[in-house]
């Protein structure tokens, strides 16, 4: 059974004019969001996107726009409490800080 999450918030965009049809987005997407149609990529399932940002990062034509981030409530709550962007690090990536999160 395919698991799906809240879809109406996803803002993934593909500029078909810029797309060179290399197929990289299809290769890196973990949720079959793209498909190749007439030698260009096309978004066929935007709602399945988890905003990992792999497609945008690897698109040589810069045809993809998506705000990537972590889909983690704790990260978002941390961000809310600290007034920062959502983060999964809890500060523990910085050497010397006490690891109380992960």
């Amino acid at each position: 059974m395919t698991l799906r999450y809240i879809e109406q918030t996803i803002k993934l965009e593909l500029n078909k004019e810029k797309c060179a049809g290399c197929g990289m987005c299809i290769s890196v997407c973990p949720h079959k969001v793209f498909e190749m149609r007439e030698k260009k990529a096309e978004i066929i399932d935007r709602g399945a996107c988890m905003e990992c940002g792999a497609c945008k990062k690897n698109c040589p034509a810069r045809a993809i726009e998506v705000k990537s981030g972590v889909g983690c409530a704790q990260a978002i709550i941390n961000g809310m409490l600290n007034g920062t962007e959502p983060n999964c690090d809890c500060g523990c990536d910085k050497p010397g800080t006490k690891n109380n999160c992960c």
Partner: protein
Amino acid sequence: MSEQKCCCGPGTKIQIKGKNANRCNDSSVDTNDNSQKNIMTTTAKLQTADILGNIGVRLGYRRSNYAVMPGIYKIGNPDQDSLVLVTSNYKLTFDSLRCELTELNAWILVLDTNGVNVWCAAGKGTFGTDELISKINRTGLKNIVSHNKLILPQLGAPGVCAHEVLQKTGFKVIYGPVYARDIKKFIADGFKKTPEMSTVTFTLKERLAVIPVDLILSWKITFLILIAVAAAGILNSGQLLKAAEKEFALSGSQGASVQFIFFHSLIKQIAIDFMPYLGSIIAGCAAVPILLPYLPFRAFSLKGTICGAIWSLIIINAYNLTLIPAIAKFLIITSISAYFAMNFTGATTFTSQSGTEFEVKKSFRPILLFFISGVVLNILLTFKIL
């Protein structure tokens, strides 16, 4: 509810004791360069210690400090034409890759991700373009292999820009399958992936694997609830003391002492009082993940509310609660379950940040309101105000 839990596993700076990193001086490659000395050896066979370590880390033991030495490894007898597979230095990841490489001669390039798995490290950028380029240069990969292909796990793609790596190092990044179990087939098929090999799943087995860590990471909240329940139990222990004195008198002062009877019944009472809340944590941390595809609603907090509501109805029925205590139990149990269910978003493989943000903004206040009202009701009940 200030438990700081990280969705993405460990992230501390680690110190590696080169346990698994047996330095190797023997070689079949060029010897006139620096890279030679730095080649480490590994095998496709996991030792008992690796297996025990993997089980331990699944339970949270050494989870933030389970790493192998970054650098270049050889597996089998690779030569300059052998494939280069890139991975992270989280030992669980490294082990799951190498145990798929039986009868294969290959190089494994391990990036320093602070002991974090590939996907989470890619999200944080530590499994990233810069780290890959730096490891290519520092290991002298150009002198080790004569080709220019690197096979990366597909889930490393959020951190790595393939065309930038090609431009800066001449190495061509090929994104392999999501799961290490498909790597042999991927290689055999000439680097072709089926849509299934490209897709991340979240099967019951995968969900079960993340439950223990989630439960263990919730221990702080579990402990706080236990203290609160114990405090309320002690405050209300007057009746238990009277009952103990009565029982002692009935036994003709011959049986166990009053203190013993009292203590015994107090512990029992605390355990009975604690059970509903322990259950609510299990509802959010275990029942929701297990039943994930079958529970209605997309929002995890709503899925948690359902499991919490069912559990509270069971408790209200089993404990024969009157209206006000029943409402108090319902509010606390559903809010705890909803909170933990919502936190499970971080352990999944399909939740987006914008969706999770939407959910947290909608759910956080109601959850807090439910919890606080339930606690206030309970305090009033404890002090016999209601």
